[in-house]
């Protein structure tokens, strides 16, 4: 992990309040693994914003991030234009463990989808069969559908049924039981439901928490690992954990 300057190559709106930014940086593009994140400085804000790496192009030395406009930091970030420079710490965190499974299931919810794309692409390149279940609030929020379809079988679910299946990602889990491992990222209630439903399967989940330093120094972003007070730091020990390792 280093403190790097990343030039913005492009800024695109890919869904409702959802921005895709392509950033140029040699070090991060060459070293990042799927599931790691960038800790992004935003002018006028005390704290950096953690944003997952959604894609990497080593040839072009570029890194793609996707973020949703939630509050003032992401709103300000969305106003940045191509050519401007971001101050970033990265790549941060551990990343998803990679292994040559026959089939994996990716389960993403909303803005938890981006890191799974980088993972899916990497696994597909290694010959793993990818099945994806992507949940969004509504039709307007759906993004990267075609990109995931290019990786394999993909199910889109919207909470209000305006696109794809209606309901939650857990509602379509039964459609696909034929996988060796699952990887998931999304809101905590979704992760709770998934880890409960897929107790019998090996799985890895990526977590979010409000961060201070983003490097492991401030103890802001902990998650309990047991009821005895054990804990891990999401920014350093995570954001990816095995489904059994942490207490949601």
């Amino acid at each position: 992990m280093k403190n790097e300057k990343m030039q913005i190559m492009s800024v695109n709106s890919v869904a409702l309040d959802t921005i895709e930014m392509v950033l140029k940086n040699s070090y991060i593009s060459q070293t990042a693994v799927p599931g790691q994140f960038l800790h992004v400085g935003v002018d006028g804000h005390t704290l950096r914003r953690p944003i997952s790496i959604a894609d990497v192009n080593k040839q072009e030395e570029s890194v793609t991030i996707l973020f949703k406009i939630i509050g003032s930091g992401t709103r300000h970030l969305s106003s940045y234009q191509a050519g401007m420079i971001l101050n970033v710490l990265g790549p941060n965190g551990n990343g998803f463990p990679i292994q040559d499974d026959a089939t994996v299931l990716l389960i993403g919810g909303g803005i938890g989808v981006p890191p799974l794309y980088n993972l899916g692409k990497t696994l597909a390149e290694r010959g793993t069969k990818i099945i994806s279940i992507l949940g969004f609030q509504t039709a307007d929020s759906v993004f990267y559908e075609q990109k995931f379809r290019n990786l394999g079988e993909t199910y889109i679910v919207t909470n209000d049924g305006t696109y794809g299946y209606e309901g939650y990602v857990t509602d379509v889990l039964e459609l696909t039981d034929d996988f060796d491992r699952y990887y998931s990222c999304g809101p905590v209630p979704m992760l709770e439901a998934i880890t409960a439903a897929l107790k019998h399967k090996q799985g890895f989940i990526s977590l979010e928490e409000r961060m201070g330093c983003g490097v492991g120094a401030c103890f802001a972003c902990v998650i309990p690992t047991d009821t005895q007070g054990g804990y891990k730091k999401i920014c350093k020990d995570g954001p990816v954990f095995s489904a059994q390792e942490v207490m949601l």
Partner: protein
Amino acid sequence: MTNLAVNLPGLQLKNPVMPASGCFGFGREYSEFYDLGKLGAVIMKAATGSERFGNHVPRVAETSSGMLNAIGLQNPGVEKIIETEVPFLADYDTKLIANVAGSTIEEYELVAKTFNQTNQVHALELNISCPNVKEGGSQFGTDPFMAAKVTERVKQANNLPVYVKLSPNVSDIITMAKAVEAAGADGLSMINTLAGMQIHLPSKRPLLANKTGGLSGPAVKPIAIRMIYEVKQHVSIPIIGMGGISNAEDVLEFLLAGANAVAVGTANFQNPFICPEIIDELPGVLNKYGFGSVQDAVGKGIVE
């Protein structure tokens, strides 16, 4: 050549800049960014008698020009710190300050005594001002009698110089400072965070799990400067100043107000290189305003 050296009880510092307690862990993470030997000193994260797990998350929130934290003194306990963290830091050419916390006077004593057994720690920072724990911490920090008592007992329990870290959440900071000076404090460290809160509109409840948290960052700098300026005129022990420092000009402002050295907290999160950058820029800033050394500037902003 501009002389950055500062000579404080137990702390012969090559420069006056150190990371503040709790914002730098035990140095490991930032050692990946630069050589910690550049720092005047390192103040470690608070140590308590036994392991503490701290508060529930969320533990931090962002505010205008600042942040709130309610970590709750999470740490592996003093013995584990001495075993696994102190030796790592002792390898660097810098001074080491241990931040001592507790819920009872006995716990403070125990932690101080334990640090006394290693010769790798150069001074203690007595944290009687943490606003984020139910017991201990802040009641010691707002009552001059209790503050004096814990200072005295910690002084008796060990041979290291003790810098008492004052809370800004008081009506009368001068009385607090004088009380701990009279009780034997070798120095002061000020300020800790201001008790604050943010309410999260979507959930309609305090954002931090602990409800309140400590406010730090540039937002609080004017309060820190005022308190140091006032206290400096009433005590003769040195002051490690902190609260919102984010550049070398800020350091000079603290020196002028009466700080002898400074600590940088929140700014590390924005810029991991902030401490070495400030150290590099300090000579230029001192010269620009006519000072030949750090020592020259201390207290020079105090008028009448």
